[in-house]
């Protein structure tokens, strides 16, 4: 008699385990499309963000040569922020700012460099500081 009770308990437990497995499989099947959809939405959002950053980058690059100091300064700070948020753009930004310094025609005699030149040097230094490991601009 005790043997039958034991066997029936084992059978019941196996049944419960099987039911749980089937339930989990059904739940996964139901959830999978939603997860895929969420992943797709996230990658769409990332693509949109990327396009926005590219636009910001292009605009800032164009504004580096603007006549107005405040526009040039804003462009430098925008590029610095882009470099921080998108490390893969750090090197292009570094190259762009260096090229701007190389091509810059205006000279100054004062003891202090213009604020935009200081901002560029400061941004470059953030990439080449010997004290710290290189971090994005």
């Amino acid at each position: 008699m005790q043997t039958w009770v034991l066997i029936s308990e084992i059978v019941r437990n196996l049944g419960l385990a099987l039911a749980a497995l089937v339930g989990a499989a059904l739940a996964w099947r139901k959830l999978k499309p939603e997860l895929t959809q969420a992943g797709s939405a996230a990658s769409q959002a990332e693509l949109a963000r990327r396009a926005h950053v590219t636009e910001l980058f292009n605009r800032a690059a164009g504004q580096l040569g603007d006549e107005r100091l405040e526009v040039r300064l804003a462009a430098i700070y925008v590029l610095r922020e882009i470099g921080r948020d998108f490390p893969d753009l750090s090197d292009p930004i570094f190259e762009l700012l260096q090229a701007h310094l190389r091509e810059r025609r205006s000279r100054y005699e004062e003891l202090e460099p213009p604020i935009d030149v200081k901002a560029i040097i400061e941004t470059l230094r953030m990439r080449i500081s010997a004290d710290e490991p290189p971090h994005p601009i």
Partner: protein
Amino acid sequence: MNHRIQSRTHPTVNLRGAFIRHTDLSNADLRQADLSRVDASGAAFRNSDFQDALLSGTILRGADLTGARNLTAAQLAAAIIDEHTRLPNYIDRQTLTGKTGDTVGAGA
């Protein structure tokens, strides 16, 4: 000469011909940098690493090179310095100029 070998982790600087007077590039990794014909008069390069940097025609009048690393007399001979240029203590000014106080280097 304070010669230290480090692996490159920073991007290589190329400021060839740039005008960067009185700027501060201290503590910078300038290894293999192209600083040829840069006007860096009065600029600060304290503790920066100049290993294999190109300093041909670089104007370093009044520049502060205190503590600069891996800088050689040959590099400085190609640059333009004056009596106000502050040199790292392992560089003997007299070997560069022959006599103290002269402006030396290419184009001087």
